[in-house]
């Protein structure tokens, strides 16, 4: 049931991306190109999504359990640190180079776009690299604690 509902949420998300035009990297780059002929569409997507999102999250925050009775798992981190900023900057560079962010890339994969295969494979490699680096960092931290 939980997986089925997650599938529906993913499906609806993807349909929203298709309807909004954001599955097309050229349209995303049209938004990021302020100095060229600027396409403000992406701002309208954000406005629409946030208008609905504010209502949903305001409602969700008042609840401790989901409609299925599980615990609500909302983010608790609030620190603005270097990882947040550096990570977001790196992401923005990649986004600006290709016009793809994770959601539209997965939808483009479903569209049968061969170039999306390259992007998604590289994105997964980047995520796996992050996991590897985190594991090494964790081990080094443990060793440092052991030595102290």
């Amino acid at each position, binding site marked *: 049931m939980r997986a089925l509902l997650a599938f529906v949420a993913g499906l609806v998300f993807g349909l*929203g991306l298709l309807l909004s035009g954001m599955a097309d990297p050229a349209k995303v780059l049209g938004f*990021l190109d302020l100095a060229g002929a600027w396409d403000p569409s992406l701002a309208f997507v954000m406005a629409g*999504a946030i208008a609905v999102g504010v209502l949903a999250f305001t409602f969700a925050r008042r609840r401790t359990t989901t409609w299925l009775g599980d*615990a609500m798992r909302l983010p608790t981190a609030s620190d603005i640190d270097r990882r947040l900023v550096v990570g977001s900057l790196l992401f923005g560079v990649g986004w600006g180079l290709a016009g793809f962010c994770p959601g539209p890339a*997965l939808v483009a994969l479903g569209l049968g776009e061969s170039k999306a295969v390259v992007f998604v*494979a590289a994105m997964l490699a980047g*995520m796996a*690299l992050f996991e590897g680096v985190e594991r090494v960092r964790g081990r080094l931290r443990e060793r440092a604690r052991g030595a102290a």
Partner: protein
Amino acid sequence: MRDSTALVTIAWQAFTPWASLAGGFVIGLAAALLVLFNGRIAGISGILGGLLRPSAGEVAWRAAFVAGLVAAPLAWALLAALPRIHVQADGTTLAIAGLLVGYGTRLGSGCTSGHGVCGLSRLSPRSLVATLAFMAAGFAVVFVVRHALGA
């Protein structure tokens, strides 16, 4: 037509305010479904990244959400003609961009959906900073590639 006195030239032919606003509503609805039924943030990089660090009870819903995203064009095709997309970047650029997006979104704990849509909807200052950072980097890179380098 470029008005030299205007700060920004709008691409009126490409601009799709209503479809984009409506698509945004649908994306917001998807985020609402996921938080109200599954108690989770619809952050695509986090959902995908969590699959690379599998733990009990965390695989099925994540895989199902990703499958839904990939299946969306199939569902769309049942009702209407699929939109055309245009990927201008070459293979090398796509590979570098993909690595940066994968690593960066995991290091920064989110992407356009998790920080941009959900985080801003939750009025999270952390997500606002992340969104400003990736937007600024995106604007800067496109400016350099299209105008400074003149590609």
